């Protein structure tokens, strides 16, 4: 074996291409002859569409206009994936005779270019009978609230309870010597990948085939959805994901808008393209987060955690997206984090509002649960006069208590949670700067456990989640000896193709540059349902490739031994040459002979391919402790994050540099939630207020300090590589960590730090209420 590749920070395979401007994102595909779509979107938050007249648009030269009646006639609904008990809407309808949010597509125009299509949209005449709208969770649950679906008589879409019976928790809380009770909000977030959504759809009428090039995380889910929506067979639809310019959960389902573009291609019988513009992305794409939680933590006099209950109310928006209430349910499931509680429970209520639907966003419920838990613990420590690190350690699950099953039936596998927390506290303690004048400084550390490698399939079935947890991968030695890897996970900029190539090269004992990785094409990729979301690509596809690479190595050695007429134990691969004591042959010759079918040890196996399906026995849990040092300007309310630390355990790291990039990038997004980003609506009209990047504040370079990342490696026992996921972990803790550091700096407002983002305005108002502002 040459040098180890698993664990090596090799440069990413695709970087050079991207740096040259040779990336191949969906809008870069040569679309000569393609027609372009612009959507007719609802200007109101709620109402019945009573007129849709395309006459003028068609007269002005639009190639096609589709309205609600056409769409209803030509389409079927999209399946939903994760429902909540009581949910009456099991599918996503494509036709909008009733609009339920501003920006909802009512129809579309197809024209020779985008600008002409947008011109023609202006000529489509629509009339909408307005209905009263409801914006925000509390408004939706108020008595007499306007109903998003009057036919069900409530804005509650469904409800589920996890953990101990609520009466038991109520009793424990009532009897407890100390209780901290708060209402915590997490704002809506727009994923804001730098590349918005987009697709090029091509219908070939003569053969009845639909090819969709689309910026997505889930090619097979798109295929299933397009087939359902357009009433096609799955085998008529091919979906290709080219380079994807960021996703973060926002490209994890098929949207109505995207499906309608495919419909347009089918109707015109050719190629049709739509690239979402930034305003559409900020206002009409599915969003993330949006929840309010009523949380109670009961402690005994020594600070032992007696009971935790959270009632999470999640804002589904106008209808359940394909992911629906999934993130809110995960928030409920993961609220215990790395601590012991005598009792714990979560109730999750999903709520309809007249706003764009929500769904997955990086951190998927776990940022929300960390926010609730870590804020509660911090306030409890303050109220009890205990050191917050000591209070955490007193209740933290130790390595010898693992595996540990939570009250919500998650079984943590491995890790050293207290050690990571102690180290984060040590790092934060070393760098503490004093308060000066009107600048107050504070530090905090927090901890979380992360669900990674979302599987196994049987668990998802048990939770009634219509997803497959397994992953598949294929290793092929080509006729010239090069190696091609096919996997169902896809590249969304995270660098997974490099990590997978490293795994295969190491397992086969070949140089990295012999290996290429092919992802993201339903015509050639193994079926994958969840693909690259839920921090699972390396854990699961990598797990499959650990086996596939090892098997292919063994087969090549067996073929070489047969060719050389020696026992397989006598063959060694030395660079590109197989050597035995007397004779030698090349790797390339063995590959050639293999594809010729010559001298095969096993008569029934010819193709030099190994396919492995990997369904792990259980979820593997990563964990992290974070620390933040902040400065709060009492005059302006500005919070500056001066230092940030992460001590992360994601098991065996395939490429530490890529791992660091994922963690730091996740932390930057978490800091965005903590301090900057929020989707806002006008309560009176439901109109989105954050419609440009000038209104929706993404973190800039100056907003992200020089984050320090340290790794701990507790190999997972649930996959052959010892891997745990890390795509989302960075995002989970920054809001709680920053808020707790602000509380440490300004304890006078600690109990009011319940809403993110902590914008200067919000913090200044809290400071003002406490008599501290200038």
């Amino acid at each position, binding site marked *: 074996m040459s040098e180890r590749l698993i664990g090596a920070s090799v*440069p*990413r395979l*695709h*970087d*050079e291409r*991207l*740096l*040259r*401007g*040779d*990336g191949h*994102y969906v*809008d*870069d595909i*040569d679309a000569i002859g393609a027609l372009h779509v612009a959507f007719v979107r609802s200007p109101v938050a709620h109402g019945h569409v009573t007129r849709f007249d395309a006459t003028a648009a068609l007269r002005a030269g639009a190639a096609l206009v589709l309205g609600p009646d056409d769409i209803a006639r030509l389409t079927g609904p999209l399946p939903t994936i994760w429902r909540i008990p009581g949910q009456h809407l099991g599918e996503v309808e494509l036709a909008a005779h009733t609009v339920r949010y501003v920006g909802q597509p009512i129809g579309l125009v197809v024209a020779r270019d985008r*600008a002409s299509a947008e011109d023609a949209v202006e000529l489509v005449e629509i009339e909408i009978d307005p209905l009263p709208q409801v914006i925000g969770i509390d408004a939706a649950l108020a008595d007499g609230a306007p109903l998003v679906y009057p036919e069900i008589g409530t804005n509650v879409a469904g409800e589920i309870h996890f953990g101990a019976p609520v009466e038991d928790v109520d009793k424990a809380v009532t009897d407890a010597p100390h209780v901290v009770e708060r209402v915590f909000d997490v704002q809506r977030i727009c994923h*804001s*990948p*730098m*590349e*918005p959504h987009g697709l090029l759809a091509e219908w070939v009428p003569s053969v009845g085939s639909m090819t969709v090039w689309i910026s997505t995380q889930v090619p097979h889910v798109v295929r299933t959805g397009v087939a359902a929506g357009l009433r096609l067979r799955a085998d008529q639809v091919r979906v290709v994901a080219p*380079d*994807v*310019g*960021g996703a*973060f959960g926002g490209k994890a389902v098929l949207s109505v808008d995207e499906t309608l573009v495919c419909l347009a291609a089918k109707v015109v019988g050719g190629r049709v393209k739509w690239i979402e*513009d*930034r305003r559409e992305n900020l206002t009409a794409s599915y969003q993330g987060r949006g929840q309010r939680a009523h949380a109670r933590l009961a402690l005994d006099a020594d600070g032992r955690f007696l009971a935790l209950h959270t009632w999470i109310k999640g804002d589904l928006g106008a209808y359940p997206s394909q992911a629906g209430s999934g993130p809110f349910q995960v928030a409920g499931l993961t609220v215990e984090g790395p601590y012991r509680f005598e009792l714990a429970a979560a109730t999750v209520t999903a709520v309809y509002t007249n706003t764009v639907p929500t769904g997955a966003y990086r951190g998927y419920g776990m940022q929300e649960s960390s926010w609730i838990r870590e804020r509660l613990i911090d306030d409890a420590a303050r109220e009890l006069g205990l050191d917050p690190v000591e209070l955490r350690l007193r209740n933290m699950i130790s390595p010898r208590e693992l595996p540990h099953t939570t009250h919500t039936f998650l079984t943590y596998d491995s890790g050293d949670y207290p050690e990571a927390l102690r180290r984060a506290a040590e790092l934060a303690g070393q760098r503490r700067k004093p308060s000066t004048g009107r600048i107050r400084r504070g530090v905090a550390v927090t901890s979380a456990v992360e669900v990674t490698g979302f599987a196994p399939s049987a668990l998802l079935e048990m939770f009634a989640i219509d997803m497959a947890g397994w992953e598949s991968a294929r290793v092929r030695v080509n006729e010239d000896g090069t190696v091609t890897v096919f996997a169902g996970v896809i590249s*969304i*900029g*995270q*660098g997974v193709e490099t990590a997978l190539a490293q795994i295969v090269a190491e397992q086969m004992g070949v140089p990295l540059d012999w290996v290429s990785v092919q992802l993201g094409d339903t015509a050639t990729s193994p079926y994958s349902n969840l693909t690259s979301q839920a921090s699972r690509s390396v854990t699961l596809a990598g797990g499959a490739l650990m086996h596939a690479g090892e098997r292919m190595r063994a087969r090549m050695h067996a073929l070489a031994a047969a060719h050389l007429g020696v026992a397989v134990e006598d063959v060694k691969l030395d660079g590109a040459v197989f050597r035995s004591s007397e004779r030698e042959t090349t790797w390339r010759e063995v590959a050639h002979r293999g594809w010729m079918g010559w001298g095969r040890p096993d008569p029934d196996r010819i193709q030099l391919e190994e396919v492995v399906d990997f369904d792990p026995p259980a979820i593997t849990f990563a964990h992290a402790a974070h620390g933040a040092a902040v400065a709060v300007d009492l005059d302006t309310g500005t919070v500056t994050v001066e230092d940030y630390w992460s001590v992360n355990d994601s098991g065996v790291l395939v490429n530490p*540099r*890529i791992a*660091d*990039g994922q963690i*730091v*990038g*996740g*932390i*930057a*997004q978490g800091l965005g939630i903590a301090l900057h980003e929020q989707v806002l609506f006008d309560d009176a009209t439901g109109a989105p207020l954050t419609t*440009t*990047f*000038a209104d929706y504040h*993404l*973190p*800039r*370079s*100056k907003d*992200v300090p*020089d*984050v320090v990342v340290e790794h701990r490696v507790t190999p997972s026992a649930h996959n052959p590589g010892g891997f745990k996921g890390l795509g989302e972990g960075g995002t989970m803790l920054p809001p709680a960590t920053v808020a707790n550091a602000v509380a440490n700096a300004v304890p006078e407002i600690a109990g009011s730090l319940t809403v993110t983002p902590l914008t200067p305005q919000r913090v200044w108002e809290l400071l003002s209420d406490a008599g501290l502002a200038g």
Partner: protein
Amino acid sequence: MAHKEITVTVNGVTSTRTVEPRTLLSDFLRHDLRLTGTHVGCEHGVCGSCTVLLDGAAVRACLVLAAQVDGHTVETVESLADEGRLCGAQRAVMEEHGLQCGFCTPGILMSMAAAERDEQTADEVVSTVLQGHVCRCTGYLGLRAAIERHFREREAAR
């Protein structure tokens, strides 16, 4: 709509094309000249993905009309590599893991190129170059390291 004929030199190649008056430079580069390395991230001048050099100075191609560059010189990310070899800025961004999805990267590289021509110092560039760019993936650490490294190396080479 009356069309306008423009003659523009892009990456050293001069060509004459007919454009609509409302055509953005970013769309002209991408769709008329098929130089798709210039990416469109927001179309309102905030994200910086579409940054190109116009007569040597960094501009947002989404805020410039194609008609405005008639008679001028434009450089895009495709011009940076020298006879197939990555330029210093590209190498630094790769070596410091300053990119993930790669969508914002060409614009940042063009701002680095503009800073090189302005003879900005390594101490200046880290804040000036990234002031005008949004990267959603990296958290900027790799980009800051790459920019600092590249300009320190340039200073050392003088």
